[in-house]
């Protein structure tokens, strides 16, 4: 069975330039590349792809592309799909890159073996399978790269969105933005408790203006945070409860067991009152009486 690979490989090697031109034309048409910079990138990748085939004297079989001889090709495709994932191309575009090699390659085969229908069908099937495998591999790499991007963004979001702010001597504010899941609650709790220890604060205002919805799970996470702060000797005030959320809390029958205020300003006023401080208007000095 050494005939098939030599024919496909030698066809690619012999008609390299023609194949490349036809493939690129296909790519332009299918992927609708308009940006010249991206078009140049694609050209370069296609050239390197065919180059791998030309150099592929070591390639002994087309069945298993995870074998060692396919290593350089796999690396090339991994690079390609990672770049595309980061640049925000769609999965379809990435697959089309490999798939659009089919047409020109089949045309070459037909030209070469046109008289021999049986062999032509055989070779076409082999080439077809190979290209399918390569494109599946590419899409798998693409999906993996996308997942990496997503998990990195999640991590960054997590670190960005849990600040603990000192509002006054002994008063901390914890403005929560985004949904509270278990992992975030853990981080929020840890940073709040550490700040309580560091600043000796006795009051913490938890502001949930930026929390889109409060369901039973989010409420449970809030309660945990509040109890942990209480165990550290800090009282919590919940603020920023939107009317819609107030209704949800009542409809769900949630018992938060905490002082709550509509706005952060109200919460701060209460916190100041509790710690025995007051904010007053600065009086204009009274005009001397005539």
């Amino acid at each position, binding site marked *: 069975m050494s005939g098939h690979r030599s024919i496909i490989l030698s066809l690619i090697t012999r008609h390299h330039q023609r194949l490349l031109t036809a493939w690129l034309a296909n790519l332009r048409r299918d992927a609708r590349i308009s940006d010249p910079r991206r078009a140049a990138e694609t050209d370069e990748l296609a050239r390197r792809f065919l180059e791998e085939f030309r150099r592929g004297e070591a390639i002994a079989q087309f069945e298993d592309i995870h074998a060692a001889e396919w290593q350089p090709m796999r690396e090339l495709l991994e690079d390609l799909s990672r770049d595309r994932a980061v640049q925000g191309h769609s999965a379809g575009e990435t697959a089309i890159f490999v798939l659009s090699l089919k047409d020109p390659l089949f045309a070459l085969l037909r030209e070469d073996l046109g008289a021999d229908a049986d062999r032509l069908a055989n070779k076409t099937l082999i080439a077809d399978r190979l290209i399918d495998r390569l494109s599946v591999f590419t899409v798998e790499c693409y999906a993996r790269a996308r997942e990496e991007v997503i998990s990195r963004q999640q991590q960054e979001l997590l670190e960005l969105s849990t600040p603990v702010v000192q509002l006054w001597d002994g008063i901390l504010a914890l403005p929560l933005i985004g949904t509270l899941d278990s992992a975030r609650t*853990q981080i929020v*709790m*840890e940073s709040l*408790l*550490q700040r*309580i*220890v560091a600043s*000796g604060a*006795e009051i913490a205002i938890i502001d949930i203006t930026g929390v889109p919805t409060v369901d039973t799970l989010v409420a449970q996470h809030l309660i*945990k945070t509040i*109890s*942990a*702060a*209480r*165990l*550290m*000797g*800090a009282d919590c005030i919940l603020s920023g409860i939107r009317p819609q959320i107030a209704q949800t809390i009542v409809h769900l029958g949630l018992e938060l067991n905490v002082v709550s205020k509509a706005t952060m300003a109200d919460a701060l006023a209460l916190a100041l009152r509790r710690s025995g401080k007051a904010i007053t208007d600065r009086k204009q000095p009274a005009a001397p009486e005539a």
Partner: protein
Amino acid sequence: MADIPILQIGDCLLVSIQVDMHDRLALALQDDLTERIVADHARGVMIDISALEIVDSFIGRMLNNIAAMSRVLDAVTVVVGMRPAVAITLVELGLGLTGVRTALNVDKGLALIRRIIDSPERDDADRVR
């Protein structure tokens, strides 16, 4: 095995738990503490757990018990010095220590006890209870 020392500060008692607790020690502490509250006419009890790295349900229950006993004897109990990791563990275990008052450190605990004892509503609150 040494008992846990109970120190007197004004009309408050300070208990600093520095060793691993077990049943006998906990019972001995409850005995000693109730005796001392009565003998010294203490109005407040502070339990310092800043040395504890692990607080399990057993210690949680002991703290709740001590608080309840002191309340019967008209003394306020404040647990002070809990570490952040301990607080998170207790909350995850579902032990909120709801019957116990807490403060960040001994200083703030003392101030809290003073505030509770001096508050004018205290008599009313006692009557309701």
